[in-house]
């Protein structure tokens, strides 16, 4: 558990957001689509999915890596790293942060990945079995592994502070931000953080299907978390990269915006089974309670919950139980957002995209809808925001995420204008 870190007056804020999502590339198109309830899920186009039980996914079909990554580097890296480099560039631009103007050791890169460079690895495995070991390319050694994207971001921007990669599947997007926050509290000024994933290749999809948690309903509306017809989830690619800065450093730099503060974090582990649901919601509830305690807030201060939304019955029920246990009576009235219904589950990219959505909800006063959740299970006792986006004054957001293996994480975000109105730039500027 990473809480109770010495803070020394330092605070970690998010000052830049970069998004590559199935329903939009760049925060502008993505947020417009997200608030309009526009889904990016469709039949898989990157390969012929007709022989697979799961044939629908959230693909970022409009993504052209050539717009973001030079050819020589593309040949050394996987699509997942291309998406990470693209999102990083967007986050830095959004923050007007120019790495070359900063001490290399004041900047860290801490991202999440749950499956590494899938497609690159698959191509090399195909060469191995069809042509022989001598045909496996040299770049396989650096393209597939989980730290590749962190490393390539570090190299591209000359960021030499303490860096790393977090591998905790769907919880990774929060865990990376928590590690980023810890780095800031310990003295680093700037961290490129968040997560992205590119898991839509035959090999990667086969690995995912083995868990039995993917929907085999051949329909763009197959992923319906908290719905009576929940049938499993649909996978997706993309995610969000966020620029985490120390508050005073961010103010001195005078960038265009400070979206919000990473106010609290808690993480637990089920210690039960690689993919079967735990016997109860105790550990997920505890992660949420730890995050609230770390943030020093009462459950009633939470204005919106961005849910994990596994999309299958036992998991959705466990999440509802955890929310009721951790938030008490407030769980029945707090709006619950599940924008990942429009992208599919992005693995390491999912929770950081939810953080981006939470920050944009604060900024724009609107909670995006869950799509395809037409018959929410009344027995769960949750107020799922669905059908259309909902106007709301969002000061404080709770983001919940779970990862295969038993990872439970929760992050509390606080709107910047609410912790200091006098010194912050107008977030709408």
């Amino acid at each position, binding site marked *: 558990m990473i809480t109770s870190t010495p803070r020394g007056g330092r605070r970690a804020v998010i000052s830049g957001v970069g998004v590559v999502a199935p329903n939009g590339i760049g925060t502008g198109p993505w947020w417009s689509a997200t608030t309009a309830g526009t889904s990016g899920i469709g039949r898989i186009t990157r390969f012929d999915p007709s022989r697979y039980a799961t044939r629908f996914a959230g693909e970022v079909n409009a993504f052209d890596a050539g717009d973001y990554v030079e*050819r*020589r*580097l593309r*040949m*050394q890296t996987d699509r997942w790293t291309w998406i990470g480099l693209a999102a990083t560039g967007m986050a830095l631009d959004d923050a007007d942060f120019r790495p070359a103007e900063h001490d290399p050791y004041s900047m860290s890169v801490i991202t999440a990945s749950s499956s590494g460079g899938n497609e690159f690895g698959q191509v090399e495995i195909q060469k191995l079995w069809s042509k022989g070991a*001598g*045909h496996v390319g*040299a*770049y396989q050694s650096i393209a597939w592994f989980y730290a590749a994207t962190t490393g390539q971001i570090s190299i591209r921007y000359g960021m030499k502070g303490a860096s790393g990669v977090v591998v905790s599947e769907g919880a990774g997007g929060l865990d990376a931000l928590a590690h980023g926050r810890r780095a800031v509290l310990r003295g680093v000024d700037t961290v490129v953080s968040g997560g992205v994933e590119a898991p839509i290749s035959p090999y990667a999809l086969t690995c995912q299907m083995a868990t039995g948690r993917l929907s085999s309903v051949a329909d763009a509306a197959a992923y319906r978390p908290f719905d009576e017809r929940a049938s499993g989830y649909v996978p997706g690619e993309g995610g969000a990269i966020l620029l985490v800065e120390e508050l005073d450093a961010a103010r001195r730099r005078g960038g265009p915006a400070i979206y919000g503060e990473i106010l609290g974090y808690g993480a637990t582990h089920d210690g039960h089974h690689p993919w079967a649901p735990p016997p109860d919601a105790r550990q997920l509830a505890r992660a949420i309670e730890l995050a609230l305690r770390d943030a020093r807030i009462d459950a009633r201060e939470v204005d919106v919950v961005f849910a994990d939304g596994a999309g299958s019955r036992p998991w959705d029920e466990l999440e509802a139980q955890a929310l009721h246990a951790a938030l008490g009576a407030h769980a029945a009235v707090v709006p619950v957002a599940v924008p990942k219904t429009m992208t599919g589950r992005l693995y390491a990219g999912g929770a950081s995209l939810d953080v981006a959505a939470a920050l944009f909800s604060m900024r724009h006063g609107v909670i995006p809808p869950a799509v395809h959740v037409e018959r929410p299970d009344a027995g769960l006792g949750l107020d799922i925001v669905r059908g259309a986006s909902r106007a709301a004054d969002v000061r404080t957001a709770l983001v919940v995420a779970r990862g295969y293996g038993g990872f439970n994480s929760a992050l509390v975000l606080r709107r910047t204008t609410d912790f200091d109105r006098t010194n912050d730039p107008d977030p709408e500027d």
Partner: protein
Amino acid sequence: MNHETFTHDDIRQILVERIGFSEAELPDDLDTTFTELGMDSLAIVELQLTLQQDYGVRIPDEDAHLMTTPRETIDYVNRRRLVSEAA
């Protein structure tokens, strides 16, 4: 196996297709080192793997450092081929 002489055009083709250079990035001279071209050790390994697989040249590990420029590489490949054909 290709028994024709290994040429400047051949190595340019590898640098474009396997390493990812554009034609414009490659100088006309044969003596600019791979390091000066911005290739790291992995790129040089990739180049030598390609020579082995596509041109049938066996490159022992102890010879890897003998090819630091396109000219040295062309000379090495053609010399090795003569040796292997004579054998």
